């Protein structure tokens, strides 16, 4: 009897705690998803009228009815491609070195590891300043697409390295041992077994890093993505990027430019979300069970 009597109150209070905790979790989730949903809906509602062919085909203009984002969209695509071509090979080779070759007993390898982790935490504007000093002015290639791509490569490189290292580490050691036991050399083990098995993880991480690069604004403003570019960009020519163009439109007084800014944001979101979708697809498609 007494056992039941004693346990009655705590049970009710425990059940209450349980419900409170679930409510707190739901609320937290709502904050995150609700914000995202409001942003998305608001952007789409505002920008939808300006989503028309003109946006993709015409250069910017001081007259909002004639303004488009073609140079900015093209430059963003160029930036994305160059960043991908630069950051993936460098990032993957660094990851292979650190995971498969580096001897952790050596201080310089530990230094590199710590450095890469720190670099991932450096604000992107700092990379912008660095790029302005060493790439735009130092090497003297000027405010061109390629310079912007170099800076963005530096921004995403630590992320690519970390993601690639995780993918390489996820390959079980039994695979390496099996290959070594057949008389394969270290190079053959890495190149023919470890790397192919880690490609899905590397691809996923690289795409996510790239989608970050495409959305970056701060370092690009620093290295001079010029705001008014009425012509198609070239690799070594002046340019503006989509986020910079959006930022500029929001500053203009005519409300029609606000609509254009929202439309630009929709395009940028579409690019980034479709890249993330590819990453998720790759991850699910090639998920390995060892």
């Amino acid at each position, binding site marked *: 009897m007494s056992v039941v009597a004693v346990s009655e109150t705590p049970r009710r209070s425990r059940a209450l705690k349980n419900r409170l905790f679930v409510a707190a979790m739901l609320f937290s989730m709502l904050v995150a998803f609700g914000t995202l949903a409001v942003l998305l809906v608001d952007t789409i509602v505002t920008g939808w009228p300006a989503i028309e062919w003109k946006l993709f085909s015409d250069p910017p203009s001081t007259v909002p009815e004639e303004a488009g984002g073609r140079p900015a969209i093209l430059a963003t695509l160029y930036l994305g491609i160059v960043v991908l071509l630069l950051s993936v090979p460098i990032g993957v080779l660094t990851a292979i070195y650190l995971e498969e070759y580096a001897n952790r007993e050596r201080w310089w390898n530990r230094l590199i590891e710590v450095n890469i982790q720190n670099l991932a935490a450096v604000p992107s504007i700092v990379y912008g300043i660095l790029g302005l000093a060493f790439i735009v002015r130092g090497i003297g290639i000027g405010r061109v697409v390629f310079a912007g791509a170099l800076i963005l490569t530096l921004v995403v490189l630590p992320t690519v390295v970390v993601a690639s290292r995780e993918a390489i580490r996820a390959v079980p050691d039994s695979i390496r*041992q099996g290959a070594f036991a057949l008389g394969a*050399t270290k190079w053959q083990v890495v190149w*023919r077994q470890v790397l192919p098995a880690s490609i899905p993880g590397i691809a996923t991480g690289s795409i996510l890093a790239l989608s970050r690069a495409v959305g970056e604004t701060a370092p690009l403003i620093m290295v001079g993505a010029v705001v008014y570019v009425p012509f198609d960009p070239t690799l070594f020519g002046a340019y503006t990027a989509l986020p910079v163009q959006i930022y500029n439109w929001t500053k203009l007084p005519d409300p029609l430019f606000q609509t254009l800014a929202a439309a630009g944001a929709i395009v940028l979101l579409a690019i980034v979300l479709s890249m993330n979708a590819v990453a998720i697809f790759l991850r699910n498609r090639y998920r390995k069970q060892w």
Partner: protein
Amino acid sequence: MEAPQIDSARIAEVARGALSRGDIERRERVFTVSDLGVSYNGKPALEDVSLDVFRNTVTAFIGPSGCGKSTFIRCFNRMNDLIPGADIDGTVLYHGADLYGRSVDPVEIRRRIGMVFQKPNPFPKSIYDNIAFGPRVLGMKGDLDERVEGALRQAALWDEVKDRLKDGALGLSGGQQQRLCIARALAVEPDVILMDEPASALDPISTTRIEDLMHELKREYTIVIVTHNMQQAARVADMTAFFSVVVDEDGSARRGVLVEYDTTTKIFTTPSDKRTEDYVTGRFG
């Protein structure tokens, strides 16, 4: 207390098909191990092992967990080289040449001395590519399709997989995966095959198939096997080495030692060391 009984069924099992001592010792010595010791980061794991492995025989290493038998088998193809901190002293002669000599390339050693692991470890590729990997990395000449078929036939897997060579190897059952790993080792035409508890992760039927396979394979290859399972050693091995664990007086360090090495018949019927007798009669371990 009863006297230790050696079960007569086991004697019959051992006697079947076992080679006599004289028969074995007339064969060429593939490995001659003298005073071998292995330590990890300065801590000895195995000490003072000396034994010979004879050509076209199955040699089994048995003993309780932690006795160093797996460490020992990995000395034969220099897999311990891959473990940082592993240190080996003593000598291992392979057909009379020092396996740990300065001019010896461990990669070349592993080509000639194949290994099958405790847990089947097929590559995450097709069945065909698993077998073809070795010949490809070694740049072996000749028809690859024939080589793949030959290896799968030798490993008694061909009939089960011939219609799905392009399918992923990870879709095979555990027993099939292990035979695939044996086929993969055979495809590079090794001289010796080392098997580190090859059947410990398998069901009894798959185990029987692997054991039958060992009887077949010893005609062409020299086989060294580590096993937890004494019946398995009795069924497949011509020679058996019993390892045990020695604990320091203060209980701080444990290391493996070789207690007795002899024909399987002798080890399982009339062992000369008390510790071997206790182990094979099931009193210990």
